[in-house]
């Protein structure tokens, strides 16, 4: 009886995917216990909620997700408009929508709604994909991204943009266009510079010379690179990082948790972490290749690459090769909303895998 229930519970769950994610969540617990022991209980609660969400989503067939995609997208855009009009301002940015009983961050929803919507669109036009379709897809992509940039929230807008771009790329956007747009973007960069918020510019400038303002804007980057570098090959030992424990690392349980981990567990620990991410992404791409239809392929591919983007941008910024944009370390950083979104993505991957093509054509 219990065995049957268990079977039923784990039926939609993909073993390898669950294994890699589980190990990453374990890494998170180890890092969190050192960085912010006071938050362990809340973090555990987040994990439980996120796993539940994953399990529920894993059961939803991709066709159902596809039929929901446009509604989800439109809903998300409406929420973003609502944020622009009535959102709560905190630390100078308007990101949250207060519904009275709960505060939500609609841009988070877009990370999932965006790939679903674009994949839905390409699936609809699968028979004949023309340049026009890519143009339409680009418009679908840019509307929410523009709304999120305006909040302003550079980190999230990069992730949402990346999520959409991956779909378009995987759907076969011609290389000529990609290279052309890349060149145009490079040419437009000076203009974009003038459009950035002052603090965003500061962050990019800081990357070039953090020592200029050691107490202010440069503080984050300087202290986190010191933490990583002083960790060495073997690390200073769990709970022994002077940078972490003496509070030199800012936001050490959220965006900068990698610095704590790297200081205490060293290059070996980092290698383990990067390999885990690589395995997770490998498995995701494998699921994408085996998926049943274009929609499923595109969604699986894009979600997997989003995991990559999170990891790359976060480790990149904490180790000082990318500007600080407020992207958490996936599956590890403290924060319920981000974790739930990520695990929802894992759930979708599992569902796609469950409903894959059983016979290769």
């Amino acid at each position, binding site marked *: 009886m219990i065995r049957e229930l268990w079977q039923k519970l784990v039926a939609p769950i993909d073993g390898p995917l669950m294994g890699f994610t589980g190990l990453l969540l374990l890494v998170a617990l180890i890092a969190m216990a050192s960085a912010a022991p006071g938050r362990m209980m809340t973090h555990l609660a987040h994990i439980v909620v996120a796993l539940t969400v994953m399990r529920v989503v894993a059961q939803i067939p991709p066709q159902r997700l596809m039929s929901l995609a446009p509604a989800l997208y439109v809903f998300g855009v409406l929420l973003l408009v609502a944020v622009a009009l009535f959102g709560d301002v905190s*630390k*100078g940015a308007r990101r949250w929508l207060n519904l009275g009983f709960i505060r939500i961050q609609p841009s988070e929803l877009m990370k999932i709604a965006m790939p679903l919507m674009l994949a839905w669109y390409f699936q609809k036009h*699968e028979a*004949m*994909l*023309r*340049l026009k379709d890519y143009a339409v897809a680009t418009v679908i992509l840019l509307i929410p991204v523009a709304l999120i940039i305006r909040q302003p929230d550079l980190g999230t807008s990069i992730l949402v943009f990346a999520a959409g771009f*991956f779909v378009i*790329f*995987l759907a*076969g956007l*011609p290389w000529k266009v990609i290279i052309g747009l890349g060149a145009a973007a490079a040419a437009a960069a000076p203009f974009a510079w003038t459009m950035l918020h002052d*603090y965003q510019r500061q962050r990019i400038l800081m990357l070039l010379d953090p020592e200029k*303002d*050691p*107490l*202010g*804007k440069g*503080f984050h980057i300087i202290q986190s*690179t*010191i*933490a*990583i*570098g*002083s*960790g*060495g*090959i073997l690390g200073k030992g769990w709970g022994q990082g*002077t*940078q972490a424990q*003496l509070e*030199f690392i800012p936001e050490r349980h959220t965006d900068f948790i990698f610095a704590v981990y*790297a200081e205490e567990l*060293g*290059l070996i620990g*980092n*290698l383990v972490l*990067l390999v885990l*991410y*690589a395995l997770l*992404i*490998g498995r995701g*791409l494998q699921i*994408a*290749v085996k998926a049943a239809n*274009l929609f499923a*392929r595109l969604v699986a*591919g894009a979600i997997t*690459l989003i995991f*990559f983007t999170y990891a*790359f941008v976060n*480790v*990149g910024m904490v*180790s*000082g*090769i990318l500007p600080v944009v407020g992207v958490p370390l996936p599956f590890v950083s403290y924060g319920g909303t981000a974790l739930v979104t990520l695990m929802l993505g894992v759930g979708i991957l599992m569902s796609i895998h469950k409903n894959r093509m059983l016979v290769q*054509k």
Partner: protein
Amino acid sequence: MEFKNPQEHLEQFNRRVAVAGAIVLSCFVLLFGRLVWLQVIQHDYYQTRAEDNRISLVPITPIRGLIVDRQGEVLARNYSAYTLEITPSQVPDLETTIDGLAEFIDIQPKDRRRFKKLMEENKRFESLPIRTRLSDAEVAKFIARRFRFTGVDIKARLFREYPRGAFASHVTGYLGRVTERDLGRIEAQEAEANYRGTDHFGKSGLEQHYEFELHGITGFEKVEVDAAGRPVRTMARTAPVPGNNLTLTLDVKLQEIAEEAFGDRRGALVAIEPTTGGILALVSMPNYDPNLFVDGINVADWGELNNSPEKPMVNRALNGAYPPGSTFKPFMALAALELGKRRPEQAIFDPGYFNFGSHTFRDDKKGGHGTVDMYKSIVQSCNTYYYHLANDMGIDNIAAFMGSIGLGSRTGVDIEGESEGVLPSQAWKKKRFKKVEQQKWFAGETISVGIGQGYNAYTPIQLAQAIATVANDGVMFRPHLVKHITDTRTGKQTPIEPQPLKALGWKQANIDVIKRALVGVNIEGTGTRAFAGAGYVSAGKTGTSQVYSLKGAEYKRQGTKEELRDHSLYIAYAPADKPAIAVAVLVENGGFGSQAAAPIARQVFDYYLLGKLPKGAAPADEAAKEADE
């Protein structure tokens, strides 16, 4: 791009996935390379730097800017004093340590209580003062015994001081220790770095509004510390930049005369230069001593200030909303002229009452004022005239005009937390009340509003702005206290330009009618007594605002309890032909406007226009009794 078959499509997808996989892999290799660079190749360098973090960057708090009046008289400054400070995280047993210190330094129970409170509000590794303003002898005694006290040190710190005590305290406001809420403001300004090492933050008044101007730029010092965390050697130093000084439009002498004129009465006064909006005096009585807050206010003082029925912490000039009473009438009359609802010479007959439906609205003068035109209606403050007028105009016309001169909305003065007051209208009532049956506006309510009673409630600064706007022929300015901000390094002065908010476009002929009547008030009306023998021509309007509805019973001044007595109001400007000062005065429970508020305005004008100082106490006002409102 077209695909002949799904197979081709699939192959293309697989190629794209392969490209993506390759990019992922190379990015991870790049990251790993960076980590190897940091953790293997540069490891020694970063190892040293992590060690060097024991070399700490000590912020040097800048000197806070001064607040001075228009002549340079200082209202807020700083002094340096030695404080005895404890870093709780470095002290094994706090009680024993404090007892030990108390053997040779005077530490009172209240100092201990304050220290406990500070500990709750701050992190344990912050250095917190147990005693401030140590004497030289106490400093010497501690230095001699320093070795016995780990985690205890003497620091030279700057403290804020308000040399004139309670004087003008509602203008300067006060500083207090940084709290959670202040941190939010600091973060919103992205000024966290600049506030490392700053313990104090403006909590009210100019100190609050101009916090980021007054603060200055924090310097820092790289110091090597020993194992106990004490500085051993300074390695590098960036000097702090002192905060900017504020020069006010305020005239300290005028402020002083105004505050003294109130005696121990409660109330507010706002004097404005009509052509600039510069505030010459801003009084709210009673006031409080801002020095009490500087070291962290003790519980007893705070309780006394907070629980006093006199409410000294409330800035009545900005936060007290009072019915304007008859001071509303000149604005009503101007509205009537502008809207074409009355001509100046158009007269009514006042029998002493106005019947509306089944209700009778009474005039204060029994038997009425007889034939009343606009001039007489203002000079003698005839209620019946305005009952008719309000009824003819309707509430929404009234609200639109009064709104245009700033009544019922914040003036934008450079002190935070200003109240809006209440500008009644149909829309306002709908919003104000929840129950549908209460939301409907009744025509009878318009009639009380017409004489400045009913739902009307405005702050003294709004009334001052409104009368200044009339004085300035309809050009309205934002009231402001700061004249210019001085960069203490370069001496460069940034003036706060007078901001004309809007020109209301009134007909000059209409303004002149009102101005003539306001002059009449002080020559042959309710303000005559207060302005008898003044060496200049002034214009004004008295008002009495009802605190308590007597429901038809006759008002007996002597018989009413003090807190139920009417508020006394007066708005005025002078000289009448070329206004240099406009003022709104409110005396809480002062009775008639002509008796309490107008004489205060007289003293203020006498000084400002003639340089005349008031003789002795405020003039006895019993004789003004016959003047009616």
